[in-house]
């Protein structure tokens, strides 16, 4: 990863609104040509960070280096950075092509060149036929594409996207996720996307930064973040996770029921420390050979999801049932009923250990 070229370097940046610290001393590097996702729940500071990159908020302190040049003193209108707004902010009194041309007109570009670039952009987003339409005559997905085109046509060094798919319905959203990824490859511009949807971040991004309380919790590739979450919060935030409470004893964890849970290592924890063992539902199974761990339980609820069945199994590991995803092909047509006895198996390599807090 380190051989990538750093495009943007955020250094110890903070933004305070009166008493509250929206962003608090955050540092982060973003590489050239990557698709980067800022992931966090509302209030995590991700949107404030994005707005500081665009120049719409002034940082309380810290530096934003773009191509090694500090952007903080540069006015929003002069930065080679463009933002695609969550609301799209398409100008309602201008047609699609006027909207796209607007940013180029601000650069005092020649008319013929503007027309040519707008035309190219319309082709890329496949809306040539809609050029004369007003935004209110477009569907949600079309508006989203126009907003994207309007920002992209200026060929910014960095394109910021604030919840770009938030306003679309579910089906269109998954289509647009791939479409955005394709577009990013095609235009070769660095994308920084803000989202609260972890699935969206996993699908689209090359790297993800999880934000919490104005700071960075963890940064890495989707796989790193999914497989090796840094702490209990990150593990819970990305995907689903079962947490089995216990205490450390040597290389294993002893649950409150005295049952032993084997894990790869308990490095960093002391004997007797209160921890949780974390296992993803899809890493548990009803049939598994040589699994180090197992537990008997009774089916609490069973929900059919098409490609798998989600079982909630009551066990001796606390009051909260354990979630298990059972692939359809492994169980055939046999339905589960509440109260059925089952045994859950999982490998120690799939078990993570976090401090219990």
């Amino acid at each position, binding site marked *: 990863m380190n051989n990538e070229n750093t495009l943007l370097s955020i250094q110890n940046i903070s933004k305070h609104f009166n008493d509250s610290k929206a962003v608090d001393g955050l540092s982060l590097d973003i590489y050239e040509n990557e698709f980067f996702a800022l992931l966090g729940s509302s209030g995590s500071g991700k949107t404030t960070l994005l707005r500081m990159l*665009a*120049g*719409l908020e002034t940082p309380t302190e810290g530096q934003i280096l773009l191509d090694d040049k500090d952007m903080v003193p540069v006015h*929003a*209108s*002069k930065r080679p*950075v*463009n*933002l695609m*707004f*969550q*609301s*799209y*902010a*398409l*100008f*309602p*009194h201008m047609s699609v092509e006027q909207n796209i041309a*607007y*940013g180029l007109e*601000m*650069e005092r570009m020649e008319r013929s060149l503007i027309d040519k670039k707008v035309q190219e952009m319309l082709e890329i987003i496949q809306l040539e036929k809609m050029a004369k339409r*007003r*935004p*209110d005559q477009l569907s949600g997905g079309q*508006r989203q594409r126009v907003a994207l085109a*309007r*920002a992209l046509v*200026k060929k910014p060094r960095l394109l910021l996207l604030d919840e770009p798919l938030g306003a679309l319905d579910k089906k269109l959203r998954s289509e647009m996720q791939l479409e955005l990824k394709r577009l990013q490859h095609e235009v070769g511009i660095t994308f920084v996307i803000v989202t609260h949807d972890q699935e969206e971040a996993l699908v689209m991004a090359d790297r993800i930064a999880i934000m919490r309380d104005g700071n960075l919790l963890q940064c890495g590739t989707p796989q790193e973040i999914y497989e090796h979450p840094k702490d209990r919060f990150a593990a819970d935030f990305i995907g689903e996770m079962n947490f089995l409470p216990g205490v450390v004893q040597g290389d294993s964890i002893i649950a409150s029921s005295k049952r032993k849970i084997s894990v790869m290592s308990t490095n960093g924890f002391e004997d007797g420390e209160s921890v949780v063992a974390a296992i993803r539902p899809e890493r548990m199974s009803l049939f598994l050979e040589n699994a180090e761990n197992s537990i008997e339980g009774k089916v609490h609820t069973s929900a059919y999801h098409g490609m798998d069945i989600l079982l909630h199994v009551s066990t001796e590991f606390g009051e909260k049932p354990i979630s298990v995803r059972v692939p359809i092909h492994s169980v055939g047509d046999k339905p589960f009923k509440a109260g059925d006895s089952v045994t859950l198996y999982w490998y120690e390599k799939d078990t993570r250990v976090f401090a219990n807090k």
Partner: protein
Amino acid sequence: MNFKNKMSSVLIAPAFLWLIALMVVPCVMILVLGFFQRGIYGGIEYNFTLENFQLVFDSLYAGIFLSSARIAGTATIIAVFIGYFAAYAIATSPKKWQPTLLFFAVLPFWSNYLIRTYAWIVLLNREGLLVGFSKWLGIDGGIPSILYTESAVILGLVYNYLPFVILSCYAPLARMNPDFREASTDLGASNFTTFRRITLPLSVPGIAAGAVFVFVLSIGNFITPALLGGGRFQMIGNVIYAQFLTANDWPLGAALSMVLIGIMMILLMIQASAAQRSIGQKNKEQLDG
């Protein structure tokens, strides 16, 4: 369903008949009256004629129409100019102050029109504060009082209708998605360019509504010319009043009214249909916002 309709008709009928008898019928009567002759001692001779309309378009009355339109137009331009910037200043103030600022901008509108006009007589008359103030400043003999001039009438109209213009210009500004302005800045526009190309065009519905309102109420205004103009010069409302109550030429008064009402209604209808058209757009904007 049938029962509901019957009940609704019973409930609607009295008010409906009242409005027909005292609004629709009188308006239709004006239409008719304009085509009759004046009686020798006042009153009406029921002979069809177009004389009244020839008179309306003759130089005297046409001139009064034109000067009324000029006064109303000047008042409209000034009121819209001040009102728009006031609305803009309010709309860009901190959110928590906006309702209060707006409330105080509109509050004078709630007090009596005559009294608001009278307040200017108090300020402007020859023994009034403004003249006294200018004397105190040492201007020789004081500046001349503008009371009973066209300027005073325009001033009075602007003063009386300004709150409405502020209100109607504020509506589109407050409703405007703030992202529009930021998007424009992000795309490289200066503040002035953003104002000229985004904010101003999007405020046009409010500006138009305010302008039509001020113009329509100014051109037919009766009180302000009578009080601040001192009756020394006439706007069309005063002339019509005189035809009915002093000159006793009802048919001519009706013909003048018809033309005035025509002008007003055409403007109001244009504005209403323009507003109707922008409603669709407005709903979509709100979706975006």
